[in-house]
């Protein structure tokens, strides 16, 4: 156990901290290790104030038995360390226990690893959906006569330019239980009762696909536009069946565009915030939302920083690979 002076020093610092409004941030920091620390500090301050003691090492345990517990002092000591790896571990659902070993958090408290996996899962789904929807569209736009394709291209570019919040609002209105989509479906006799289309994964996927799809179409289109039809004809005149010719000569030439599109959509989806926040439900929180909660509501900047670090490293990895393979200069935004 600590020396008696330590008890006295603690009692004085607590009163001083309470006077200078610093008690809150100390309590927050300690609560991070043990959720009962905040109430312990507040209770102790209340009882210590205006009281004098010859021997605080007796008085403090009288105020609360936990001051006689070695574990409480260990928490204090650990929280005093700087820098600490605690936040980086917590962001991956791990923590340091009292013996100094790194252990997994209990299952009911572990949320971040799952959130990272969910974020990757949603981003990958959006990327795949966009690719499947975009490829034929880009192909047609690249092979139509210029005037016609220019006019159709407007239908891609105008939504692309439209404010993200406007488009999310549009889906928010359309997907309501008594909104346009549901009344259309029931009007056509396809459903007997309104489908739940928002505040769940469906809403997130619809909204994000709508926002990401133009990136994919434009990325693939810009590559397809430069592909000469000569190769396809050559392959066919050499005896390849149309499907074989398409798969073996055309698709490989479009891979640069497919790669650029997939990279863009995946990486932008990883950091998505607005659409999942408005159209998603309790089970669809992406990592950006958790960072926002830690920054703005919990005021746990350490944890927010740790989560951001992982997200940036992960995003940066793809950025680096893409820059190496394709070159970031080749990215064209519009």
């Amino acid at each position, binding site marked *: 156990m600590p020396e008696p002076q330590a008890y006295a020093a603690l009692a004085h610092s607590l009163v001083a901290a309470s006077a200078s409004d610093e008690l809150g941030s100390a309590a927050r920091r300690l609560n991070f290790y043990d959720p009962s620390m905040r109430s312990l500090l507040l209770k102790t301050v209340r009882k210590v104030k205006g009281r004098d003691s010859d021997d605080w090492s007796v008085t403090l345990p009288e105020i609360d038995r936990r001051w006689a517990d070695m574990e409480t002092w260990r928490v204090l000591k650990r929280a005093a360390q700087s820098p600490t790896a605690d936040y980086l571990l917590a962001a991956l659902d791990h923590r340091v226990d009292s013996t100094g070993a790194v252990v997994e958090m209990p299952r009911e408290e572990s949320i971040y690893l799952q959130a990272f996996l969910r974020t990757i899962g949603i981003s990958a789904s959006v990327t795949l959906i966009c690719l499947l*929807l975009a490829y*034929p*569209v880009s*192909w*047609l*736009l690249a092979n139509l006569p210029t005037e016609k394709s220019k006019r*159709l291209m407007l*239908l*891609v*570019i*105008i*939504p692309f*330019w*439209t*404010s*993200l*919040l*406007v*488009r999310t*609002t*549009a889906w*928010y*209105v*359309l997907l*309501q239980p*008594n*909104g*346009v989509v549901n*009344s259309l479906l029931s009007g056509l006799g396809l459903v007997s009762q309104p489908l739940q289309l928002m505040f769940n994964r469906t809403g997130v996927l619809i909204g994000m696909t*709508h926002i990401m*799809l*133009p990136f994919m179409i434009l990325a693939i289109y*810009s590559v397809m536009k430069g592909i000469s039809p000569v190769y396809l004809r050559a392959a066919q005149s050499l005896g390849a*069946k*149309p499907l074989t010719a398409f798969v073996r000569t055309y698709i490989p030439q479009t891979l640069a565009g497919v790669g650029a599109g997939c990279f863009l959509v995946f*990486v*932008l989806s990883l*950091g998505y*915030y*607005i659409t999942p926040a*408005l159209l998603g439900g309790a089970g669809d929180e992406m990592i*950006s*939302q958790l*960072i*926002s909660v830690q*920054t*703005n509501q919990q005021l746990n900047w350490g944890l*927010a*920083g740790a989560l*951001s670090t992982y*997200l*940036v490293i992960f*995003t940066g990895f793809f*950025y680096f690979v893409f820059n190496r393979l394709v070159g*970031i*200069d080749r*990215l*064209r*935004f*519009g």
Partner: protein
Amino acid sequence: MKTHYWSRLERWSARWVRWHTALVLLFLVAPILIIMPLSFNSTSYFSYPMTGVSLRWYETVFTDGQWQRAFLNSLGIGFASTLLATVLGTLAALGLSRASFPWRGVVMPLLISPMITPIVVVAAGFYYVFAPLGLVDSYLGVILAHAVLGTPFVVITVCAALQSFDHSLTRAASGLGARPWVNFRRVTLPLIAPGVATGAVFAFATSFDEVVVVLFIGGSEQRTVPRQMWNGIRDQIDPSILAVATLLILVVLALYACTSWLSKRHSGEIPE
């Protein structure tokens, strides 16, 4: 027989591609087209058939002090941050385009990284950096942050414009005695102006559409239009939001017309 089978497959797939494209384009445009008429609905329902036509939601928007302030804020922050981003981005692009620029392969991706970095991370970063400087909840803070987000667009468009720039022109001008500033003002700038202008439009559009940074570092004074919409959706959504959305779509169409005009004047460097 075989050729007959394949040509049928080809015809079938051509038809399928057309249908697929039509449906995907409909998916992209329909939400925007559907909400515009709903902003003229006389009741606060978000469904068709509309109960009647009225301008009451537009009246709400134009007479409401909060929306007026939001529009002014959006324009002010947009113009200030665009000016900053355009000056900084153009200077950066001019430097980067010099053959002697060291570490170009490192500096360029770094300059473009705000575009790729998750916006929440950028916003949280601004919060940490700006809080001790007293820039949180201030116009200056939001303007600086938006300028950072807009700069990469200017760097990209001006770099693209400089790629087709003939450097012998500046050499000729300085050979004829033009000082660097005159050279830049009279030779370089007029030639890259469309690229600069395109970048500026992108930077403005970025700021005008931005909500996450404003949520993190803006106070109630700095509420912009997207921020006001965000509040509206979260609290009590009514068709006045659709009226604002319709107005924003018109702004976008105007901005788009701007860039197509710019790209016609100087083809080949506008991204898409």
